[in-house]
Protein backbone atom coordinates (compact mmCIF):
# COMPACT_ATOMS: atom_id res chain seq x y z
CA UNK A 1 0.00 0.00 0.00
CA UNK A 2 2.60 2.47 1.03
CA UNK A 3 5.11 3.35 -1.63
CA UNK A 4 8.66 3.90 -0.51
CA UNK A 5 9.19 7.57 -1.24
CA UNK A 6 12.87 7.30 -2.10
CA UNK A 7 12.49 9.25 -5.30
CA UNK A 8 15.53 10.42 -7.21
CA UNK A 9 16.54 13.87 -6.11
CA UNK A 10 15.86 15.23 -9.61
CA UNK A 11 12.10 15.09 -9.02
CA UNK A 12 12.21 17.22 -5.87
CA UNK A 13 12.03 20.71 -7.41
CA UNK A 14 9.09 19.70 -9.58
CA UNK A 15 7.23 18.38 -6.56
CA UNK A 16 8.04 21.46 -4.52
CA UNK A 17 6.71 23.87 -7.15
CA UNK A 18 2.92 23.58 -6.61
CA UNK A 19 2.84 25.07 -3.07
CA UNK A 20 4.75 28.14 -4.25
CA UNK A 21 2.42 28.61 -7.20
CA UNK A 22 -0.49 28.03 -4.88
CA UNK A 23 0.65 30.91 -2.73
CA UNK A 24 0.56 33.28 -5.72
CA UNK A 25 -2.92 32.28 -6.90
CA UNK A 26 -4.81 34.04 -4.06
CA UNK A 27 -3.19 37.37 -4.88
CA UNK A 28 -3.96 37.07 -8.57
CA UNK A 29 -7.54 36.08 -7.80
CA UNK A 30 -8.00 38.95 -5.37
CA UNK A 31 -6.70 41.41 -7.94
CA UNK A 32 -8.94 39.88 -10.62
CA UNK A 33 -12.04 40.01 -8.42
CA UNK A 34 -11.45 43.63 -7.40
CA UNK A 35 -10.87 44.59 -11.04
CA UNK A 36 -14.08 42.81 -12.09
CA UNK A 37 -16.01 44.71 -9.41
CA UNK A 38 -14.52 48.03 -10.52
CA UNK A 39 -15.77 47.30 -14.06
CA UNK A 40 -19.13 45.82 -13.13
CA UNK A 41 -20.30 48.50 -10.68
CA UNK A 42 -20.39 51.34 -13.27
CA UNK A 43 -21.93 48.97 -15.83
CA UNK A 44 -24.69 48.09 -13.36
CA UNK A 45 -25.20 51.78 -12.59
CA UNK A 46 -25.46 52.58 -16.30
CA UNK A 47 -27.87 49.81 -17.28
CA UNK A 48 -31.62 49.95 -16.82
CA UNK A 49 -34.91 51.32 -18.10
CA UNK A 50 -33.38 54.81 -17.97
CA UNK A 51 -29.80 54.41 -19.26
CA UNK A 52 -27.19 56.76 -17.85
CA UNK A 53 -23.89 56.76 -19.80
CA UNK A 54 -20.89 55.52 -17.81
CA UNK A 55 -19.20 58.91 -18.24
CA UNK A 56 -22.18 60.58 -16.56
CA UNK A 57 -22.13 57.99 -13.76
CA UNK A 58 -18.48 58.77 -13.04
CA UNK A 59 -19.08 62.51 -13.28
CA UNK A 60 -21.98 62.33 -10.83
CA UNK A 61 -19.99 60.28 -8.32
CA UNK A 62 -17.08 62.72 -8.62
CA UNK A 63 -19.45 65.61 -8.07
CA UNK A 64 -20.93 64.10 -4.91
CA UNK A 65 -17.49 63.31 -3.56
CA UNK A 66 -16.41 66.89 -4.24
CA UNK A 67 -13.76 65.82 -6.74
CA UNK A 68 -14.91 67.90 -9.69
CA UNK A 69 -17.32 66.23 -12.10
CA UNK A 70 -20.73 67.65 -12.91
CA UNK A 71 -24.24 67.32 -11.59
CA UNK A 72 -26.63 65.50 -13.97
CA UNK A 73 -30.22 66.48 -14.67
CA UNK A 74 -32.74 65.78 -11.93
CA UNK A 75 -34.13 62.55 -13.36
CA UNK A 76 -30.72 61.00 -13.96
CA UNK A 77 -29.50 62.03 -10.48
CA UNK A 78 -32.58 60.55 -8.91
CA UNK A 79 -32.39 57.30 -10.87
CA UNK A 80 -28.74 56.94 -10.04
CA UNK A 81 -28.77 57.88 -6.36
CA UNK A 82 -32.21 56.75 -5.22
CA UNK A 83 -32.62 53.59 -7.29
CA UNK A 84 -29.44 52.17 -8.79
CA UNK A 85 -26.79 52.91 -6.17
CA UNK A 86 -28.73 51.63 -3.15
CA UNK A 87 -29.50 48.52 -5.14
CA UNK A 88 -25.87 48.00 -6.14
CA UNK A 89 -24.61 48.52 -2.61
CA UNK A 90 -27.25 46.17 -1.29
CA UNK A 91 -26.34 43.51 -3.87
CA UNK A 92 -22.68 43.79 -2.86
CA UNK A 93 -23.48 43.55 0.86
CA UNK A 94 -25.89 40.64 0.50
CA UNK A 95 -23.60 38.75 -1.89
CA UNK A 96 -20.57 39.23 0.35
CA UNK A 97 -22.55 38.11 3.40
CA UNK A 98 -23.91 35.00 1.70
CA UNK A 99 -20.56 33.99 0.20
CA UNK A 100 -18.73 34.43 3.49
CA UNK A 101 -21.49 32.72 5.51
CA UNK A 102 -21.30 29.72 3.18
CA UNK A 103 -17.52 29.41 3.54
CA UNK A 104 -17.78 29.73 7.34
CA UNK A 105 -20.57 27.22 7.59
CA UNK A 106 -18.71 24.64 5.51
CA UNK A 107 -15.67 25.13 7.74
CA UNK A 108 -17.60 24.82 11.00
CA UNK A 109 -19.54 21.76 9.87
CA UNK A 110 -16.46 20.28 8.19
CA UNK A 111 -18.77 19.53 5.29
CA UNK A 112 -18.63 21.01 1.79
CA UNK A 113 -22.41 20.78 1.34
CA UNK A 114 -23.34 23.05 4.24
CA UNK A 115 -24.96 26.26 3.05
CA UNK A 116 -27.43 28.63 4.73
CA UNK A 117 -30.12 27.91 2.11
CA UNK A 118 -29.59 24.15 1.90
CA UNK A 119 -29.65 23.45 5.61
CA UNK A 120 -32.56 25.81 6.28
CA UNK A 121 -30.91 28.71 8.10
CA UNK A 122 -32.09 31.17 5.45
CA UNK A 123 -35.67 29.90 5.80
CA UNK A 124 -35.32 30.11 9.56
CA UNK A 125 -34.20 33.72 9.34
CA UNK A 126 -37.02 34.37 6.87
CA UNK A 127 -39.56 33.17 9.46
CA UNK A 128 -38.35 35.92 11.79
CA UNK A 129 -38.50 38.52 9.04
CA UNK A 130 -41.92 37.41 7.81
CA UNK A 131 -43.24 37.45 11.37
CA UNK A 132 -42.09 41.06 11.68
CA UNK A 133 -43.87 42.04 8.45
CA UNK A 134 -47.06 40.04 9.03
CA UNK A 135 -47.51 41.15 12.62
CA UNK A 136 -46.57 44.73 11.73
CA UNK A 137 -43.87 44.78 14.41
CA UNK A 138 -41.83 47.95 14.58
CA UNK A 139 -40.19 48.03 18.01
CA UNK A 140 -36.74 48.92 16.67
CA UNK A 141 -37.58 50.95 13.58
CA UNK A 142 -35.70 49.94 10.46
CA UNK A 143 -33.79 47.29 12.37
CA UNK A 144 -36.87 45.34 13.51
CA UNK A 145 -36.83 42.96 10.55
CA UNK A 146 -33.05 42.45 10.81
CA UNK A 147 -33.20 41.75 14.54
CA UNK A 148 -35.99 39.21 14.24
CA UNK A 149 -34.27 37.58 11.25
CA UNK A 150 -31.07 37.33 13.29
CA UNK A 151 -32.78 35.77 16.30
CA UNK A 152 -34.70 33.26 14.19
CA UNK A 153 -31.59 32.50 12.10
CA UNK A 154 -29.52 31.94 15.24
CA UNK A 155 -32.07 29.57 16.72
CA UNK A 156 -32.10 27.65 13.44
CA UNK A 157 -28.31 27.32 13.17
CA UNK A 158 -28.13 26.07 16.75
CA UNK A 159 -30.94 23.60 16.11
CA UNK A 160 -29.37 22.25 12.91
CA UNK A 161 -25.98 22.06 14.58
CA UNK A 162 -27.30 20.14 17.57
CA UNK A 163 -29.37 17.79 15.44
CA UNK A 164 -26.92 16.95 12.69
CA UNK A 165 -23.77 16.25 14.68
CA UNK A 166 -22.76 13.01 16.25
CA UNK A 167 -19.35 12.09 17.57
CA UNK A 168 -17.83 15.39 16.47
CA UNK A 169 -18.73 15.01 12.79
CA UNK A 170 -21.59 15.91 10.55
CA UNK A 171 -22.61 13.23 8.12
CA UNK A 172 -23.85 14.31 4.72
CA UNK A 173 -27.15 12.48 4.93
CA UNK A 174 -27.98 13.75 8.40
CA UNK A 175 -27.19 17.31 7.39
CA UNK A 176 -29.32 17.25 4.24
CA UNK A 177 -32.22 15.52 6.00
CA UNK A 178 -32.05 18.03 8.83
CA UNK A 179 -32.17 20.75 6.18
CA UNK A 180 -35.29 19.21 4.63
CA UNK A 181 -37.00 19.07 8.01
CA UNK A 182 -36.03 22.62 8.93
CA UNK A 183 -37.03 23.99 5.52
CA UNK A 184 -40.40 22.22 5.76
CA UNK A 185 -41.10 23.57 9.22
CA UNK A 186 -40.00 27.09 8.31
CA UNK A 187 -42.15 26.91 5.17
CA UNK A 188 -45.14 25.92 7.27
CA UNK A 189 -44.60 28.83 9.66
CA UNK A 190 -44.26 31.27 6.76
CA UNK A 191 -47.48 29.82 5.28
CA UNK A 192 -49.23 30.33 8.57
CA UNK A 193 -48.17 33.98 8.71
CA UNK A 194 -49.32 34.41 5.09
CA UNK A 195 -52.70 32.95 5.95
CA UNK A 196 -53.27 35.42 8.76
CA UNK A 197 -51.66 38.47 7.13
CA UNK A 198 -53.56 41.25 5.33
CA UNK A 199 -53.27 41.76 1.59
CA UNK A 200 -50.45 44.32 1.70
CA UNK A 201 -48.35 42.13 3.96
CA UNK A 202 -49.06 39.10 1.75
CA UNK A 203 -47.63 40.96 -1.25
CA UNK A 204 -44.57 41.91 0.69
CA UNK A 205 -44.05 38.38 2.00
CA UNK A 206 -44.46 36.78 -1.44
CA UNK A 207 -41.76 39.04 -2.81
CA UNK A 208 -39.60 37.93 0.07
CA UNK A 209 -39.93 34.26 -0.58
CA UNK A 210 -38.76 34.67 -4.15
CA UNK A 211 -35.81 36.76 -3.10
CA UNK A 212 -35.27 40.16 -4.69
CA UNK A 213 -33.39 43.42 -4.36
CA UNK A 214 -35.96 45.47 -6.30
CA UNK A 215 -37.07 47.43 -3.23
CA UNK A 216 -33.63 48.60 -2.28
CA UNK A 217 -33.45 51.93 -0.47
CA UNK A 218 -30.74 53.66 1.56
CA UNK A 219 -32.53 52.94 4.88
CA UNK A 220 -32.45 49.24 3.98
CA UNK A 221 -28.74 49.49 3.26
CA UNK A 222 -28.28 51.10 6.66
CA UNK A 223 -30.31 48.36 8.30
CA UNK A 224 -28.00 45.57 7.10
CA UNK A 225 -24.73 47.46 7.11
CA UNK A 226 -23.85 46.89 10.81
CA UNK A 227 -24.61 43.13 10.66
CA UNK A 228 -22.73 42.60 7.43
CA UNK A 229 -19.71 44.72 8.36
CA UNK A 230 -19.40 43.13 11.81
CA UNK A 231 -19.72 39.60 10.41
CA UNK A 232 -17.35 40.19 7.50
CA UNK A 233 -14.85 41.89 9.79
CA UNK A 234 -14.80 39.19 12.46
CA UNK A 235 -14.75 36.14 10.16
CA UNK A 236 -11.15 36.44 8.86
CA UNK A 237 -9.81 36.54 12.45
CA UNK A 238 -10.80 32.88 12.74
CA UNK A 239 -9.34 31.71 9.42
CA UNK A 240 -6.32 29.92 10.87
CA UNK A 241 -8.39 28.14 13.52
CA UNK A 242 -10.89 27.03 10.86
CA UNK A 243 -8.01 25.46 8.91
CA UNK A 244 -7.06 23.47 12.02
CA UNK A 245 -10.68 22.43 12.55
CA UNK A 246 -10.48 20.56 9.22
CA UNK A 247 -8.30 18.01 11.06
CA UNK A 248 -11.19 17.20 13.40
CA UNK A 249 -12.15 18.52 16.81
CA UNK A 250 -9.63 16.68 18.94
CA UNK A 251 -6.60 17.36 16.74
CA UNK A 252 -7.66 21.01 16.58
CA UNK A 253 -7.76 21.10 20.38
CA UNK A 254 -4.34 19.43 20.53
CA UNK A 255 -3.04 22.31 18.42
CA UNK A 256 -4.36 24.86 20.90
CA UNK A 257 -7.78 25.74 19.48
CA UNK A 258 -10.51 26.37 22.05
CA UNK A 259 -13.02 24.45 19.94
CA UNK A 260 -16.15 25.17 21.99
CA UNK A 261 -15.52 28.89 21.96
CA UNK A 262 -14.65 28.88 18.26
CA UNK A 263 -17.91 27.14 17.45
CA UNK A 264 -20.04 29.55 19.47
CA UNK A 265 -18.44 32.63 17.92
CA UNK A 266 -18.69 31.30 14.37
CA UNK A 267 -22.30 30.18 14.72
CA UNK A 268 -23.10 33.72 15.89
CA UNK A 269 -21.25 35.19 12.91
CA UNK A 270 -23.06 32.86 10.49
CA UNK A 271 -26.43 33.86 11.94
CA UNK A 272 -25.46 37.53 11.71
CA UNK A 273 -24.43 37.34 8.05
CA UNK A 274 -27.40 35.22 7.01
CA UNK A 275 -29.80 37.52 8.84
CA UNK A 276 -28.22 40.55 7.19
CA UNK A 277 -28.78 39.02 3.77
CA UNK A 278 -32.22 37.56 4.37
CA UNK A 279 -33.69 40.59 6.12
CA UNK A 280 -33.35 42.79 3.01
CA UNK A 281 -33.45 40.38 0.12
CA UNK A 282 -35.44 37.33 1.13
CA UNK A 283 -34.11 33.86 0.43
CA UNK A 284 -31.35 33.82 -2.17
CA UNK A 285 -30.00 30.31 -2.33
CA UNK A 286 -26.84 28.61 -3.56
CA UNK A 287 -24.52 31.65 -3.56
CA UNK A 288 -22.98 30.38 -0.32
CA UNK A 289 -22.59 26.92 -1.84
CA UNK A 290 -21.17 27.70 -5.26
CA UNK A 291 -18.86 30.60 -4.42
CA UNK A 292 -16.59 28.95 -1.80
CA UNK A 293 -16.42 25.84 -3.96
CA UNK A 294 -15.15 27.62 -7.03
CA UNK A 295 -12.53 29.39 -4.93
CA UNK A 296 -11.43 26.20 -3.21
CA UNK A 297 -10.91 24.60 -6.60
CA UNK A 298 -8.86 27.56 -7.83
CA UNK A 299 -6.83 28.50 -4.77
CA UNK A 300 -6.99 25.60 -2.32
CA UNK A 301 -8.94 25.27 0.92
CA UNK A 302 -6.96 27.66 3.19
CA UNK A 303 -9.45 29.91 4.97
CA UNK A 304 -7.17 32.95 5.09
CA UNK A 305 -7.99 33.54 1.44
CA UNK A 306 -11.25 31.60 1.28
CA UNK A 307 -13.19 33.81 3.72
CA UNK A 308 -12.42 37.25 2.24
CA UNK A 309 -12.32 35.73 -1.26
CA UNK A 310 -15.81 34.27 -0.85
CA UNK A 311 -17.07 37.68 0.27
CA UNK A 312 -15.56 39.31 -2.85
CA UNK A 313 -16.76 36.67 -5.30
CA UNK A 314 -20.16 36.52 -3.59
CA UNK A 315 -20.54 40.28 -4.05
CA UNK A 316 -19.51 40.01 -7.70
CA UNK A 317 -21.80 37.07 -8.42
CA UNK A 318 -24.82 38.65 -6.80
CA UNK A 319 -24.28 41.98 -8.52
CA UNK A 320 -24.04 40.19 -11.89
CA UNK A 321 -27.09 38.04 -11.08
CA UNK A 322 -29.12 41.08 -10.05
CA UNK A 323 -28.09 42.93 -13.20
CA UNK A 324 -29.22 39.92 -15.24
CA UNK A 325 -32.45 39.56 -13.27
CA UNK A 326 -33.50 43.14 -13.96
CA UNK A 327 -32.44 43.32 -17.62
CA UNK A 328 -32.98 39.89 -19.17
CA UNK A 329 -36.79 40.11 -19.24
CA UNK A 330 -37.17 43.91 -19.18
CA UNK A 331 -39.39 45.75 -18.62
CA UNK A 332 -40.42 42.91 -16.27
CA UNK A 333 -38.02 41.77 -13.58
CA UNK A 334 -37.03 38.20 -12.77
CA UNK A 335 -36.92 37.43 -9.04
CA UNK A 336 -33.25 37.18 -8.06
CA UNK A 337 -33.75 34.13 -5.83
CA UNK A 338 -35.35 32.27 -8.72
CA UNK A 339 -32.37 33.06 -10.94
CA UNK A 340 -29.72 31.93 -8.44
CA UNK A 341 -31.66 28.73 -7.71
CA UNK A 342 -31.97 28.06 -11.45
CA UNK A 343 -28.21 28.32 -11.88
CA UNK A 344 -27.19 26.93 -8.48
CA UNK A 345 -29.27 23.75 -8.31
CA UNK A 346 -27.48 21.93 -11.16
CA UNK A 347 -24.21 22.74 -9.44
CA UNK A 348 -25.60 21.25 -6.24
CA UNK A 349 -26.52 18.08 -8.13
CA UNK A 350 -23.01 17.78 -9.48
CA UNK A 351 -21.54 18.36 -6.03
CA UNK A 352 -23.75 15.70 -4.48
CA UNK A 353 -22.63 13.15 -7.05
CA UNK A 354 -18.99 14.06 -6.64
CA UNK A 355 -19.12 13.91 -2.83
CA UNK A 356 -20.88 10.57 -3.05
CA UNK A 357 -18.29 9.14 -5.41
CA UNK A 358 -15.42 10.31 -3.25
CA UNK A 359 -16.81 8.85 -0.04
CA UNK A 360 -18.01 5.66 -1.72
CA UNK A 361 -21.68 6.13 -0.86
CA UNK A 362 -23.20 7.98 2.05
CA UNK A 363 -21.25 7.42 5.21
Amino acid sequence: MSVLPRTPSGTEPREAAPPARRRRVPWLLTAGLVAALVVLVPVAARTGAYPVPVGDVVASVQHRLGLGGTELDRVAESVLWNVRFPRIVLALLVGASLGCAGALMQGVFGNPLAEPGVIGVSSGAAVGAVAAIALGLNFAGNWTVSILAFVAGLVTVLLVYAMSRSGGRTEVVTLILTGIAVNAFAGALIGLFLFFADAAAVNQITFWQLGSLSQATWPKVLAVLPCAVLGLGVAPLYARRLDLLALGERPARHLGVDVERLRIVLVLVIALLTAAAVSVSGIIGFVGLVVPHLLRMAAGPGHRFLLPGSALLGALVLLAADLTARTVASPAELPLGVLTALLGSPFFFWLLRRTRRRHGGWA
Partner: protein
Amino acid sequence: MRLLRPRPAPPLPASPGDTLAEAEALHVRLDGTRDVLHGVDVAVRAGEVLALVGPNGAGKSTLLGALAADLAPAYGVVRIHGRPVSDWSAPELALRRAVLPQASALSFPFSVEEVVRMGRAPWAALGPEDDDAAVAEAMAATEVTAFAGRPFSALSGGERARVTLARVLAQRAPLLMLDEPTAALDLRHQELVLRLCRERARAGDAVVVVLHDLGLAAAYAHRVAVLRAGRVAADGPPEEIFTEPLLSEVYDQPVEVLPHPRTGAVLVLPVREE
Protein backbone atom coordinates in the same frame (compact mmCIF):
# COMPACT_ATOMS: atom_id res chain seq x y z
CA MET B 1 -8.92 38.17 19.46
CA ARG B 2 -5.29 37.24 19.96
CA LEU B 3 -4.59 40.65 21.46
CA LEU B 4 -7.19 40.26 24.19
CA ARG B 5 -5.69 37.07 25.57
CA PRO B 6 -2.37 36.70 27.37
CA ARG B 7 0.33 35.03 25.30
CA PRO B 8 0.78 31.39 26.27
CA ALA B 9 4.09 30.86 28.06
CA PRO B 10 6.45 28.46 26.26
CA PRO B 11 7.54 25.40 28.28
CA LEU B 12 10.71 25.54 30.36
CA PRO B 13 13.42 23.10 29.25
CA ALA B 14 13.22 19.76 31.08
CA SER B 15 16.17 17.74 32.33
CA PRO B 16 16.36 13.97 31.76
CA GLY B 17 14.22 12.05 34.23
CA ASP B 18 11.76 14.92 34.88
CA THR B 19 8.18 13.70 34.89
CA LEU B 20 6.40 15.50 32.03
CA ALA B 21 3.08 13.65 32.31
CA GLU B 22 1.65 11.50 35.05
CA ALA B 23 -1.57 9.84 36.08
CA GLU B 24 -2.30 9.28 39.74
CA ALA B 25 -5.04 6.89 40.92
CA LEU B 26 -6.73 7.62 37.61
CA HIS B 27 -10.30 6.41 37.09
CA VAL B 28 -11.94 7.13 33.75
CA ARG B 29 -15.58 6.49 32.97
CA LEU B 30 -16.80 6.51 29.37
CA ASP B 31 -20.40 7.24 28.33
CA GLY B 32 -21.22 7.95 31.98
CA THR B 33 -21.48 4.27 32.91
CA ARG B 34 -18.55 2.20 31.67
CA ASP B 35 -15.47 2.25 33.92
CA VAL B 36 -12.48 1.78 31.64
CA LEU B 37 -9.60 2.65 33.98
CA HIS B 38 -9.56 1.67 37.67
CA GLY B 39 -6.81 3.46 39.55
CA VAL B 40 -3.93 3.74 37.10
CA ASP B 41 -0.58 5.23 38.15
CA VAL B 42 1.86 5.94 35.38
CA ALA B 43 4.60 8.48 34.76
CA VAL B 44 6.13 9.65 31.49
CA ARG B 45 9.67 10.99 31.92
CA ALA B 46 11.90 13.18 29.81
CA GLY B 47 14.50 11.19 27.87
CA GLU B 48 12.41 8.04 27.90
CA VAL B 49 10.14 6.09 25.53
CA LEU B 50 7.23 4.55 27.44
CA ALA B 51 5.18 1.94 25.58
CA LEU B 52 1.61 1.14 26.62
CA VAL B 53 0.73 -2.43 25.68
CA GLY B 54 -2.08 -4.80 26.51
CA PRO B 55 -4.93 -6.74 24.93
CA ASN B 56 -7.83 -5.05 23.09
CA GLY B 57 -10.09 -3.15 25.46
CA ALA B 58 -7.49 -3.00 28.26
CA GLY B 59 -7.69 0.83 28.25
CA LYS B 60 -4.49 1.80 26.39
CA SER B 61 -6.08 4.44 24.19
CA THR B 62 -8.26 5.65 27.04
CA LEU B 63 -5.17 6.14 29.20
CA LEU B 64 -3.47 8.04 26.39
CA GLY B 65 -6.62 10.14 25.89
CA ALA B 66 -6.67 11.01 29.60
CA LEU B 67 -2.95 11.91 29.56
CA ALA B 68 -3.60 14.09 26.50
CA ALA B 69 -6.43 15.90 28.36
CA ASP B 70 -9.06 14.64 25.91
CA LEU B 71 -10.91 12.71 28.61
CA ALA B 72 -11.66 14.04 32.08
CA PRO B 73 -10.89 11.71 35.01
CA ALA B 74 -13.79 10.51 37.15
CA TYR B 75 -11.38 10.38 40.10
CA GLY B 76 -7.68 10.86 40.41
CA VAL B 77 -5.54 13.43 38.66
CA VAL B 78 -3.54 13.84 35.46
CA ARG B 79 -0.62 16.27 35.50
CA ILE B 80 1.30 17.65 32.56
CA HIS B 81 4.57 19.39 33.34
CA GLY B 82 3.63 19.15 37.02
CA ARG B 83 0.27 20.94 36.80
CA PRO B 84 -3.20 19.33 36.66
CA VAL B 85 -4.36 19.34 33.02
CA SER B 86 -7.45 21.38 33.83
CA ASP B 87 -5.22 24.28 34.94
CA TRP B 88 -3.69 24.64 31.46
CA SER B 89 -5.38 26.50 28.63
CA ALA B 90 -5.62 24.83 25.22
CA PRO B 91 -2.84 27.03 23.71
CA GLU B 92 -0.53 26.31 26.66
CA LEU B 93 -1.11 22.57 26.38
CA ALA B 94 -0.41 22.71 22.66
CA LEU B 95 3.10 24.01 23.37
CA ARG B 96 3.70 21.16 25.83
CA ARG B 97 2.32 18.04 24.26
CA ALA B 98 1.64 16.76 20.75
CA VAL B 99 -0.82 13.94 20.09
CA LEU B 100 -0.97 11.51 17.17
CA PRO B 101 -4.54 10.21 16.87
CA GLN B 102 -5.36 6.66 15.80
CA ALA B 103 -7.23 7.76 12.69
CA SER B 104 -6.56 10.90 10.70
CA ALA B 105 -9.31 12.64 8.77
CA LEU B 106 -9.37 15.90 6.84
CA SER B 107 -12.51 17.74 5.73
CA PHE B 108 -10.95 19.76 2.92
CA PRO B 109 -8.23 18.93 0.37
CA PHE B 110 -5.25 20.63 2.02
CA SER B 111 -1.86 19.68 0.58
CA VAL B 112 0.59 17.53 2.53
CA GLU B 113 2.82 20.51 3.25
CA GLU B 114 -0.12 22.57 4.48
CA VAL B 115 -1.16 19.77 6.83
CA VAL B 116 2.36 19.48 8.28
CA ARG B 117 2.52 23.26 8.64
CA MET B 118 -0.64 23.13 10.79
CA GLY B 119 1.60 21.56 13.43
CA ARG B 120 3.29 24.94 13.78
CA ALA B 121 0.02 26.69 14.76
CA PRO B 122 0.69 26.68 18.54
CA TRP B 123 3.86 28.74 18.00
CA ALA B 124 2.17 31.45 15.90
CA ALA B 125 1.27 33.43 19.03
CA LEU B 126 4.91 33.57 20.14
CA GLY B 127 6.14 35.52 17.15
CA PRO B 128 8.35 34.41 14.28
CA GLU B 129 9.84 30.98 14.81
CA ASP B 130 11.72 28.85 12.37
CA ASP B 131 8.57 27.29 10.95
CA ASP B 132 10.01 26.41 7.54
CA ALA B 133 12.91 24.50 9.07
CA ALA B 134 10.65 22.60 11.49
CA VAL B 135 8.26 21.63 8.68
CA ALA B 136 11.05 20.57 6.32
CA GLU B 137 12.77 18.55 9.04
CA ALA B 138 9.59 16.75 10.07
CA MET B 139 8.73 15.92 6.47
CA ALA B 140 12.23 14.61 5.79
CA ALA B 141 12.23 12.50 8.97
CA THR B 142 8.97 10.78 8.02
CA GLU B 143 9.91 10.50 4.32
CA VAL B 144 6.96 12.49 2.99
CA THR B 145 8.90 15.33 1.31
CA ALA B 146 8.47 13.67 -2.10
CA PHE B 147 4.70 14.24 -2.07
CA ALA B 148 4.65 17.61 -0.27
CA GLY B 149 2.45 19.18 -2.95
CA ARG B 150 -0.15 16.43 -3.24
CA PRO B 151 -3.54 16.71 -1.55
CA PHE B 152 -3.74 14.74 1.69
CA SER B 153 -7.00 13.10 0.58
CA ALA B 154 -5.22 11.48 -2.41
CA LEU B 155 -2.76 9.53 -0.23
CA SER B 156 -2.86 5.89 0.86
CA GLY B 157 -3.52 4.98 4.49
CA GLY B 158 0.15 4.48 5.33
CA GLU B 159 1.17 7.74 3.67
CA ARG B 160 -1.52 9.63 5.58
CA ALA B 161 -0.29 8.13 8.83
CA ARG B 162 3.23 9.37 8.11
CA VAL B 163 2.04 12.85 7.12
CA THR B 164 0.05 13.06 10.36
CA LEU B 165 3.16 12.00 12.25
CA ALA B 166 5.13 14.72 10.46
CA ARG B 167 2.54 17.27 11.62
CA VAL B 168 2.90 16.02 15.20
CA LEU B 169 6.72 16.18 15.01
CA ALA B 170 6.61 19.69 13.53
CA GLN B 171 4.77 20.83 16.66
CA ARG B 172 8.08 20.31 18.53
CA ALA B 173 6.42 19.71 21.88
CA PRO B 174 8.59 18.18 24.63
CA LEU B 175 5.97 15.49 25.25
CA LEU B 176 4.86 13.18 22.43
CA MET B 177 1.79 10.98 22.68
CA LEU B 178 1.32 8.49 19.86
CA ASP B 179 -1.71 6.22 19.58
CA GLU B 180 -0.76 3.16 17.52
CA PRO B 181 1.56 5.03 15.16
CA THR B 182 2.58 1.82 13.38
CA ALA B 183 -0.89 0.41 12.68
CA ALA B 184 -1.07 1.37 8.97
CA LEU B 185 2.64 1.16 8.20
CA ASP B 186 4.84 -1.32 6.38
CA LEU B 187 7.83 -2.95 8.03
CA ARG B 188 10.35 -0.31 7.02
CA HIS B 189 8.22 2.58 8.21
CA GLN B 190 7.31 0.88 11.50
CA GLU B 191 11.01 0.74 12.28
CA LEU B 192 11.46 4.32 11.07
CA VAL B 193 8.73 5.65 13.38
CA LEU B 194 10.09 3.91 16.46
CA ARG B 195 13.63 5.03 15.66
CA LEU B 196 12.23 8.57 15.53
CA CYS B 197 10.72 8.02 19.00
CA ARG B 198 14.13 6.96 20.33
CA GLU B 199 15.79 9.97 18.72
CA ARG B 200 13.29 12.34 20.31
CA ALA B 201 13.87 10.71 23.68
CA ARG B 202 17.62 11.01 23.25
CA ALA B 203 17.12 14.71 22.51
CA GLY B 204 15.43 15.04 25.91
CA ASP B 205 11.74 14.69 25.05
CA ALA B 206 9.29 12.32 26.72
CA VAL B 207 7.51 9.85 24.43
CA VAL B 208 4.52 7.69 25.27
CA VAL B 209 3.34 5.32 22.58
CA VAL B 210 0.52 2.77 22.37
CA LEU B 211 1.75 -0.39 20.62
CA HIS B 212 0.31 -3.75 19.72
CA ASP B 213 3.54 -5.33 18.55
CA LEU B 214 5.36 -6.60 21.65
CA GLY B 215 8.51 -7.14 19.57
CA LEU B 216 8.60 -3.43 18.69
CA ALA B 217 7.91 -2.49 22.30
CA ALA B 218 10.73 -4.76 23.52
CA ALA B 219 13.15 -3.38 20.95
CA TYR B 220 12.48 0.34 21.25
CA ALA B 221 10.86 1.20 24.61
CA HIS B 222 12.91 2.11 27.66
CA ARG B 223 9.95 1.22 29.80
CA VAL B 224 6.71 -0.67 29.17
CA ALA B 225 3.41 -0.45 31.06
CA VAL B 226 1.31 -3.58 30.54
CA LEU B 227 -2.38 -2.84 30.94
CA ARG B 228 -4.99 -5.42 31.78
CA ALA B 229 -8.69 -4.63 32.28
CA GLY B 230 -8.09 -1.02 33.24
CA ARG B 231 -5.19 -1.61 35.63
CA VAL B 232 -1.41 -1.61 35.26
CA ALA B 233 -0.33 -5.26 35.48
CA ALA B 234 3.37 -4.48 35.20
CA ASP B 235 5.57 -1.42 34.64
CA GLY B 236 9.30 -1.54 33.98
CA PRO B 237 12.04 -2.17 31.41
CA PRO B 238 10.87 -4.73 28.82
CA GLU B 239 13.69 -7.16 29.52
CA GLU B 240 12.52 -7.36 33.16
CA ILE B 241 8.75 -7.50 32.82
CA PHE B 242 8.32 -9.38 29.53
CA THR B 243 8.11 -12.83 31.10
CA GLU B 244 6.27 -15.84 29.76
CA PRO B 245 3.91 -16.21 32.76
CA LEU B 246 2.92 -12.52 32.81
CA LEU B 247 2.34 -12.10 29.06
CA SER B 248 0.60 -15.49 28.70
CA GLU B 249 -1.76 -14.56 31.51
CA VAL B 250 -2.44 -10.97 30.38
CA TYR B 251 -3.13 -11.92 26.76
CA ASP B 252 -4.84 -15.22 27.64
CA GLN B 253 -2.59 -16.84 25.05
CA PRO B 254 0.54 -18.94 25.61
CA VAL B 255 3.59 -16.84 24.78
CA GLU B 256 7.28 -17.64 24.42
CA VAL B 257 9.93 -15.11 25.37
CA LEU B 258 13.40 -15.86 24.01
CA PRO B 259 16.65 -14.03 23.40
CA HIS B 260 17.59 -13.17 19.84
CA PRO B 261 20.22 -15.70 18.72
CA ARG B 262 22.62 -13.01 17.56
CA THR B 263 21.91 -9.85 19.60
CA GLY B 264 20.30 -11.30 22.72
CA ALA B 265 17.38 -8.81 22.47
CA VAL B 266 13.99 -9.91 23.82
CA LEU B 267 11.75 -11.67 21.28
CA VAL B 268 8.08 -12.35 22.04
CA LEU B 269 6.28 -15.03 20.05
CA PRO B 270 2.90 -16.68 20.49
CA VAL B 271 3.18 -20.43 21.04
CA ARG B 272 1.93 -22.09 17.84
CA GLU B 273 1.11 -25.79 17.63
CA GLU B 274 2.80 -27.56 14.73
